[in-house]
């Protein structure tokens, strides 16, 4: 039986197209699913936005649901200052969501189970948010590392803790998504292996497999939501400090 980790391997599907900084770039299985996520989500949302009917149809209602969902998330967590970042947060959510969901398809590939992808996204958010904070508040931004009203003598302990906590944000953000997706797919693969290996008694792990698939679908939705809302919270910290 193949290792349950084999599904995460990045495979080149074409010859290298070009080279960037000594790295050959080819179309990979991961890239195909990223492109599929882009095509599917933008196709769906463009179709939903298309008519702009007063009484929405199904697809339009769904597109508007996504829109309102993220708009409310930003309004509740960031406030009116977050409006400028709405397209970015929305894209982040849709990209992560479709990546997670497409991974649930049989023979699918989950690009959000790649630490390279999640960490890069988290780093972009982290650096972007830090720069926004510095740009908006200047040196006052560093008051983020010392809770307002704490006794001054606690500073030597609190500041390093807050600093480490702040710096570990991109790690916790990216590992949360990557680990959830990876573990889920490993679990599905292992259970699927049992179904085949146990023959007729494979029905038992099959039932579990169906239940876990439902659970993983929930995790896929939930993790996209958590990733996005944490980005909103970080953005809020940068815009409004504590």
């Amino acid at each position: 039986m193949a290792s349950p980790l084999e599904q995460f391997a990045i495979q080149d599907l074409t010859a290298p197209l070009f080279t960037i900084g000594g790295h050959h770039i080819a179309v990979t299985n991961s890239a195909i699913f990223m492109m599929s996520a882009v095509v599917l989500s933008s196709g769906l949302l463009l179709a939903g936005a298309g008519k702009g009917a007063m009484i929405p149809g199904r697809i339009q209602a769904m597109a508007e649901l996504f829109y309102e969902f993220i708009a409310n998330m930003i309004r509740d967590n960031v406030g009116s200052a977050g409006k400028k970042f709405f397209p970015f947060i929305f894209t982040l959510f849709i990209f992560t969501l479709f990546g997670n969901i497409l991974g649930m398809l049989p023979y699918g590939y989950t690009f959000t189970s790649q630490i390279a992808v999640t960490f890069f996204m988290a780093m972009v958010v982290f650096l972007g948010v830090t720069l926004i904070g510095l740009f908006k508040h200047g040196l006052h931004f560093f008051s983020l590392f010392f809770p307002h009203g704490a006794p001054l003598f606690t500073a030597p302990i609190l500041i390093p803790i807050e600093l480490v906590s702040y710096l570990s944000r991109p790690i916790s953000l990216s590992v949360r998504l990557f680990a959830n997706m990876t573990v889920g797919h490993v679990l599905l693969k292992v259970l699927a292996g049992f179904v085949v290996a146990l023959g007729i008694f494979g029905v038992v792990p099959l039932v579990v497999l169906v239940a876990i698939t439902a659970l993983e679908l929930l995790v896929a939705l939930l993790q996209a939501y958590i990733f996005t809302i944490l980005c909103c919270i970080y953005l809020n910290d940068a815009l409004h400090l504590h």
Partner: protein
Amino acid sequence: MPVQALRISVAAAALIGLPFAAQAAGMPQFDLTRFPTQIFWLVVCFAVLYFLMAKAVLPKIGATIESREHKIQADLDAAQKANDAARAAGVEQDKALTEARGQASSLIREASEAAAAQTSAKLHEVSERLGGEIAAAEKRIGEQRTQTLAGLGSMSTEIATAVLGKLGGSADPAQLARAVDEAAKAGKP
């Protein structure tokens, strides 16, 4: 918060060591040589999606939602206006109705007063006329009665004379009339 921060820092410290362990265990995610390709496609795909969302999808959906909200607000305003107008018309109608009712009741009162006055005048006239007639009739009856009573005396005398004649007697007519008079007076209640 600091407790959670501490927990996260410990997790972060553990994670720094993790890639090496995981790589040894054969997790393809930690194959650093495959990072550039993924990041390249991630940037390309994310940029395309961002462009599509920011330029095409979101403004359109936002405009649709906004125009719907405007339409709903306008409809609500129109409904409110219509409601106000209906309420005002109702108040107006109530006022007109009250007025008309007042007018009608005063008309009725006037008419009934006039009718009552007319009736009482007529009644008065009739009763006066009747009173006159009754008085005349009573007078006539009284006269007739007196006449009759006067006639009755002479008639009684004649009858008494005739009866005496039949019996073979006679009497002085003046004496007879006096006797009849006395009998009539005695017979009176």
